[in-house]
């Protein structure tokens, strides 16, 4: 673990610089450049609003904001998980030429996604104004939930990065698993009211993404206290996963370049 913090200290400048250049590259690549970071969540918000409110004729209070919160969290988690599977392969040119602690690659990717997520949160604040959702002090609960989300994603991402090197079709497995988690996380429905009684509590407690989305909604939309006990448990799980991930990566990272493709 000591090595991890030394590595972060040594490479944090590179992480910041590389994150910036990743974002710049993305902007340079596309025609509407940074507008995509706003348009993407906005369009999906409209799609889900259409499906749920017009096709299925159900709704939650402030539905567009409600679904936007869900999508924002989901996009961050999904992008991290998917990209970490192929992370080493995609950075082959770096991995085979210099030594770099491999979780630095994970962190670069995560900070890139974090920045995009922050734009999405900015959008949520604006939408809250539009739909006249009151701003409350409960919104300060945003920070602890975000930290849990970040640590949990980091743990999962490092472990997936490790196995992604050796298991060729992990990508396909992850695609199916993520679809499952997507529908189980209550992104476009409220788990606590729409799912019958014993199952909703099970889902909220066992699926960290569902819990995190629900917590964010409590902070922003309903203005109530979060279930801190469950959040703490998942924070501990996240830290444990991160430590396992870091240890595994440290043990095997020098073999990554050797894997024949």
């Amino acid at each position, binding site marked *: 673990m000591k090595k991890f913090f030394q590595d972060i200290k*040594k*490479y944090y*400048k*590179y992480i910041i*610089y*590389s994150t910036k*250049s*990743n974002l*710049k*590259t993305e902007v*340079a*690549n596309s025609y509407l450049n940074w507008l995509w970071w706003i348009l993407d969540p906005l369009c999906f918000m409209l799609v889900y609003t259409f499906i749920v409110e017009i096709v299925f004729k159900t709704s939650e209070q402030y539905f567009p904001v409600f679904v936007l919160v869900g999508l924002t969290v989901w996009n961050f988690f999904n992008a991290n998980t998917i990209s970490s599977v192929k992370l080493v392969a995609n950075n082959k*040119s*770096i*991995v*085979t*030429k*210099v*030594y*770099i602690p491999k979780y630095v690659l994970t962190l670069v990717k995560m900070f890139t996604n974090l920045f995009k997520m922050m734009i999405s949160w900015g959008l949520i604040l604006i939408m809250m104004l539009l739909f006249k959702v009151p701003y409350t002090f409960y919104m300060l609960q945003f920070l602890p939930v975000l930290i849990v989300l970040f640590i949990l994603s980091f743990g999962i991402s490092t472990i997936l990065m490790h196995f992604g090197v*050796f*298991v*060729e*079709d*992990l990508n396909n*497995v992850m695609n199916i698993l993520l679809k499952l988690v997507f529908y189980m996380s209550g992104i476009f429905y409220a788990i606590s009211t729409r799912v019958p009684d014993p199952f909703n509590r099970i889902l909220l407690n066992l699926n960290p993404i569902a819990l995190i989305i629900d917590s964010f909604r409590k902070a922003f939309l309903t203005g109530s206290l979060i279930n801190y006990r469950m959040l703490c448990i998942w924070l501990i799980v996240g830290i444990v996963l991160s430590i396992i991930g870091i240890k595994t990566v440290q043990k095997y990272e*020098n*073999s990554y*370049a*050797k*894997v*024949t*493709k």
Partner: protein
Amino acid sequence: MKEYAITVKDLHISYRTLKGFSIKKSLLKLKMSKAEIFEAVKGVSFQVEKGKILGIIGKNGSGKSTLLRSIAGIFSADSGTIDLHGNSVSLLSIGVGFQNKLSGYENIFLSGMLLGFSEQQIKEKINDIIDFSELGNFIYKPVSTYSSGMYSKLAFSITAILETDIMLIDEVFSVGDVKFKQKSYNKMKELISDENRTVLIVSHSLGTLKELCNEVLWLHDGKIKQIGDPEEVITAYEEFMKKD
């Protein structure tokens, strides 16, 4: 008392257990396929004195590049040790971590930081790098607009100006036009002949090695066949290759 910069002891490197594995395949076969073993380096030991230049020769696939990469810390050794006595090391390679959509200027920082230099160190050297690369105003244009010659000029300049204690060179480069080629060769020589710098060169150009090296190591099938005086080893090597 001689001061050593690199000590390699009984180094073994193999590519065995690390074949890619697929869930689909293993489900179909229902048993683990036998891992193929390929040992690239089989028990190599040598020492290099500080400030000396060691050339490495051998036919293709004899483990030269694997050896260099493991000294650079990219590969892990299966057994044996590599001690660099606290020196910084870099494998001279072209264009590490370049982002093609970004300008040459930004890529200097990106690549330099990846090679383990601090932002401050790069800032001090950046003008030298730009001067040496001869790119002029192109340095502020995206790398994707560069010609291949310009690209390698920039890449070479970064690695040549940002120096480390131990330099590992895989094939002597020839980049750019005739003028730049001469310039880079001279720069190379200047870098190599610095008294405090230890250099390992892998090359097939025997003439260059004879001229530059203090010692030559001949690798054959992952083992040391001969090590010692450049003239002697290279002559033996040439004879051996003719026989084949």
